[in-house]
């Protein structure tokens, strides 16, 4: 998951700034810490009553005596709840800020640990102040407000390709692994509680079913914790998607087991029929959740098709539809997490093709922001809730639970891998297994599920909660802190930081088709065959429905290429507007190096006549060389006999005048020649709209060129300066004016006669650049965001 936290303070500021900032932070924290108890003190009921009394008194007072008009009044109760919420959020954000000001700390201790500690501190402060700790980790708050942003963020940016390729493995771990964990832990715990020691403790009263329920709560790997820890260790993609996918998909299992055992724990027995119903329920919960999510996803994609005139609310659709999917699934007790993932994953390729670039950035940043704040809050609340209690510490129970969790996880992973490796092409090594087992972190979901338990039905709820918290602390602190050094020690493969290049994209596609072809030759309807069929179905029917306009036909390679161009254009601007090349591999290789040097065509007629003075031809050639190769060939074939009107002879003096500025211009082109552009689509396609960043008015239009001479048109990209220069064109039309050459956007057009309308080559870069510098667009997401994954490549 990409880094959502802020950057480290610049080293150039010296050591004093982090310390100063830290000091300020501590002061603020303590201030807040002291305000919160004040807030907690006034419980709503009392304040409401007080309010009523006050109002009555004021009303009466108004009639009887005349008080001086209150210049300043204090009324906290009205704003109490939003105020407190904002305070918590502010605290969480400031904490996050603070950790990154201390450089060494954030590299040793994962953020989640620090946040829990902060939560403990705040909870402790509140308790010290003698006030009652607010029940912050309320299950409703958690499941309805705190969890969805994180899951949506994960689902929307889920790398589909690795996920689908490893789906079988992930499902095995999620379903079978969780089941194994739940029953193993529950069963062995029951066995332990049944041991009759010399002094019988309260443990012996625990029945089998509550134990199994506890097992099912504690056995699920938690996506929040996994995300928080794995994000910082930058492990390779396969392991990351395995553990993370497992944590997402085991939600269905957890939901079913939880409800099953909770229902029947009161009754005391679970029959075989209930078991079978449970299995069916699992299928319904899982598939139903996915279905609900997919439906909402398609709705969102379809809606986004029509948003071209109301760009501002585009992000809203994404968020609201996803949230609705989650809530709808929760209505029917289906798996809300799976619904959310399905919704995000389904809608993403279509929505991204429809929305503007700015909306895309907005969605990305909002999702990251919300999920970041949510995660921080969850960990802080965990700390606070720990201080709150209620606790019932039982040495045996807790220690056995912790040990069992570890043991069950290891056995489960090893056993399952043994089976899975028989079906995998790329087998999982021992190192991989270790990381998967070690990465099975538990988190706040387990705690919230435990919190939901009814005290009457489950008298041992307190003990359960204590054990759950202990396990969470253990996994987050111990496993979370040690996993990074372990990864280094075992030399596990890390995530590749390389950007996706056009070559890799070409070969990915090529390989897909190649493997599909080989499978067809073998006659084996494998993985690739069905993927290819799905792809074709997608292209033929689905894309036409859900994507507006021309983009529905755009092949994926070209879409990728456009995206890359945009990124490079933005980078170009960020690096200071063309003066410094931000290319990953700084090199001086340019187009001319790879052009095949063709020998001049041996046409005697052309060579006999001196067409152009050599120097002039050179100049023109230099200017045009940075462009497409075709122009070079064009030049050679121009002579008196093929041209309708020879431009070079007549207006050449004008060319000389402009030569100086053109040379400067050409330098600029040369610098940008490293980035070639695809001939742009016709002006009104969404591609072009994207290039205009969707905020500028229609400033750009393609001028039809009817002649066969390559024209250099310097056209400005903004409506403010309507001047345009037609350099060589004017040689044809003698009566044309001589406007200025402006060193702004440059548009080069080849002679018409090529396929389709004239497409300006190479001008996109300059135009983008100008537009980008003019409109203060945000720099966009960082380059290593892995969001270029296509839906079904």
């Amino acid at each position, binding site marked *: 998951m990409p880094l959502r936290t802020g950057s480290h303070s610049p080293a150039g500021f010296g050591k004093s700034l982090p310390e100063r900032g830290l000091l300020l932070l501590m002061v603020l924290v303590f201030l807040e810490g002291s305000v919160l108890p004040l807030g907690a003190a006034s419980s709503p009921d009392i304040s409401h009553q007080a309010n009523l009394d006050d109002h009555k008194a004021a009303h009466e007072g108004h009639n009887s005596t005349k008080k001086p008009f209150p210049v300043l009044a204090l009324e906290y109760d009205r704003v109490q709840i939003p105020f407190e919420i904002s305070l918590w959020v502010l605290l969480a954000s400031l904490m996050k800020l603070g950790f990154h000001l201390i450089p060494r700390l954030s590299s040793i201790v994962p953020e989640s640990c620090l946040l829990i500690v902060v939560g403990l501190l705040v909870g402790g402060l509140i308790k010290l102040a003698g006030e009652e700790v607010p029940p912050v980790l309320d299950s409703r708050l958690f499941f309805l407000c705190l969890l969805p942003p994180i899951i949506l963020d994960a689902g929307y940016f889920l790398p589909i390709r690795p996920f689908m390729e490893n789906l079988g493995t992930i499902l095995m771990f999620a379903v079978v692994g969780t089941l194994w964990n739940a029953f193993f832990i529950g069963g062995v715990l029951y066995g332990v509680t049944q041991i009759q020691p010399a002094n019988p403790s309260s443990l012996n009263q625990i029945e089998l079913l509550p134990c199994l329920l506890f097992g099912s709560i504690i056995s699920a790997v938690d996506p929040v914790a996994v995300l928080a820890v794995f994000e910082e260790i930058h492990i390779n993609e396969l392991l990351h998607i395995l553990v993370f996918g497992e944590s997402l998909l085991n939600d269905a299992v957890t939901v079913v087991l939880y409800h099953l055992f909770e229902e029947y724990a009161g009754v005391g027995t679970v029959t075989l029929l209930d078991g079978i119903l449970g299995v069916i329920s699992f299928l319904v919960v899982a598939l139903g959740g996915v279905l609900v999510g997919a439906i909402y996803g398609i709705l969102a994609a379809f809606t986004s098709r029509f948003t071209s005139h109301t760009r501002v609310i585009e992000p809203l659709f994404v968020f609201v539809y996803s949230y609705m999917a989650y809530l709808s699934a929760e209505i029917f007790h289906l798996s809300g997490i799976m619904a959310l993932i399905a919704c995000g994953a389904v809608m993403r390729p279509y929505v991204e093709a429809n929305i503007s670039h700015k909306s895309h950035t907005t969605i990305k940043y909002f999702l990251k922001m919300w999920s970041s704040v949510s995660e921080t809050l969850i960990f802080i609340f965990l700390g606070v809730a720990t201080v709150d209690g209620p606790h019932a510490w039982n040495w045996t129970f807790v220690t056995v639970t912790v040990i069992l969790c570890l043991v069950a996880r290891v056995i489960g992973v090893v056993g399952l891998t043994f089976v899975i*490796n028989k079906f995998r*092409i*790329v087998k999982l*090594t021992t190192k991989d297994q270790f990381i998967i087992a070690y990465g099975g972190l538990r988190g706040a979901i387990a705690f919230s599920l435990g919190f939901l338990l009814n005290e009457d039905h489950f008298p041992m709820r307190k003990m359960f909660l204590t054990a759950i918290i202990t396990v969470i602390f253990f996994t987050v602190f111990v496993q979370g802190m040690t996993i990074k050094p372990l990864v280094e020690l075992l030399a596990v493969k890390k995530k*590749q930081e*390389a950007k996706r290049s*056009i*070559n*890799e994209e*070409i*070969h990915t*596609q*090529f*390989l897909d*088709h*190649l*493997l*599909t*072809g*080989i*499978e*067809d*030759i*073998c*006659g*084996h*309807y*494998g*993985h*690739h*065959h069905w993927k290819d069929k799905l792809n*074709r179905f997608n292209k033929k029917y689905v894309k036409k429905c859900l994507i507006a306009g021309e983009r529905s*036909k*755009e*092949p994926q*390679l*070209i879409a990728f290429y456009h995206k890359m161009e945009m990124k490079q254009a933005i980078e170009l601007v960020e690096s200071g507007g063309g003066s410094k090349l931000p*290319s990953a*591999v700084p*090199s*001086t*290789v*340019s187009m*001319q*190096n*790879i*052009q095949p*040097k063709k020998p001049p065509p041996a046409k005697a007629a052309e060579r006999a006549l001196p067409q152009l003075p050599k120097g002039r031809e050179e100049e023109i050639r230099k200017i045009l060389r940075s462009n*497409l*190769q075709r122009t070079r060939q064009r030049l050679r074939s121009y002579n008196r006999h093929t041209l309708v009107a020879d431009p070079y002879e007549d207006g050449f003096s004008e060319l000389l005048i402009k030569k100086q500025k053109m040379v400067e211009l050409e330098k600029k082109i040369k610098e940008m020649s*490293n980035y*070639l*552009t*695809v*001939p742009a*689509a016709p002006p009104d396609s969404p591609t072009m709209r994207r290039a205009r960043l969707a905020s500028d008015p229609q400033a750009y239009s393609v001028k039809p060129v009817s002649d066969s001479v390559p024209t250099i048109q310097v056209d400005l990209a903004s409506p403010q300066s309507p001047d345009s220069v037609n350099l060589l064109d004017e040689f044809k039309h003698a009566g044309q004016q001589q406007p200025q050459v402006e060193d702004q956007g440059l548009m080069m057009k080849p002679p018409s006669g090529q*396929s*389709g309308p004239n*497409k300006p*080559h190479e001008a996109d870069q300059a135009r983008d650049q100008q537009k980008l510098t003019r409109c203060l667009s945000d720099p966009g997401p960082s380059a290593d965001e892995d969001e270029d994954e296509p839906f079904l490549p």
Partner: protein
Amino acid sequence: MGALQSLPGQPEYIDLAEKTGFSLEQIGVLHKRFKQLSHNEETLRRDHFNEIPDLACNPIRAQIVEAFFDRRNFRQNGEGTVQEIGFEEFLVVMSHFRPPSLHMTEEQRENVRKEKLRFLFNMHDTDNDGTITLEEYRHVVEELLSRSGALGKETAKSIADAAMLEVASISMGHMEPDEFYEGITFEHFLKLLNEFEIESRMNIRFLNMDTTTLCK
């Protein structure tokens, strides 16, 4: 599985198994497929491949078929193309798509990688001169985009040009304005796709193929 007993020509299979690394079971299945494709003849020709219906909608069909008849893929250091292939050559070409086994050393893995990349390289380098020129690369991209219709040759050219530029940048680093980059040699190709992890991606599941589900 009863198929094992009914495999004809067992000693040849053992020979082939050693050569290509397939198991006897897999060779049996592939032999059945070979006979199906060639209508029980001894050799396969190009038109046999063209009869496979699913292959028809593949944009790079021509190159795939060519790869089977390319001597460079027969692991005998030959060159040029042939008109028909026997079962052995069929198997050898197929063996390029076997996954690396779990217990390989780093060096063996590296060899497997090189072999698969060599196969890809041969597919691109159609004129067999050891380099992928700009024209050849353009052809590759054109073929890839051929099924997708819309934007045609212009786009393909630009994409191929940009890709070539990237290779040149990565491989050569610094070039004078009048130097010329001949084409992608095999070393550059290796360097380019260094992080592509081809050994885990270019694999077909030969594990459990059931002949009864073979089409056509």
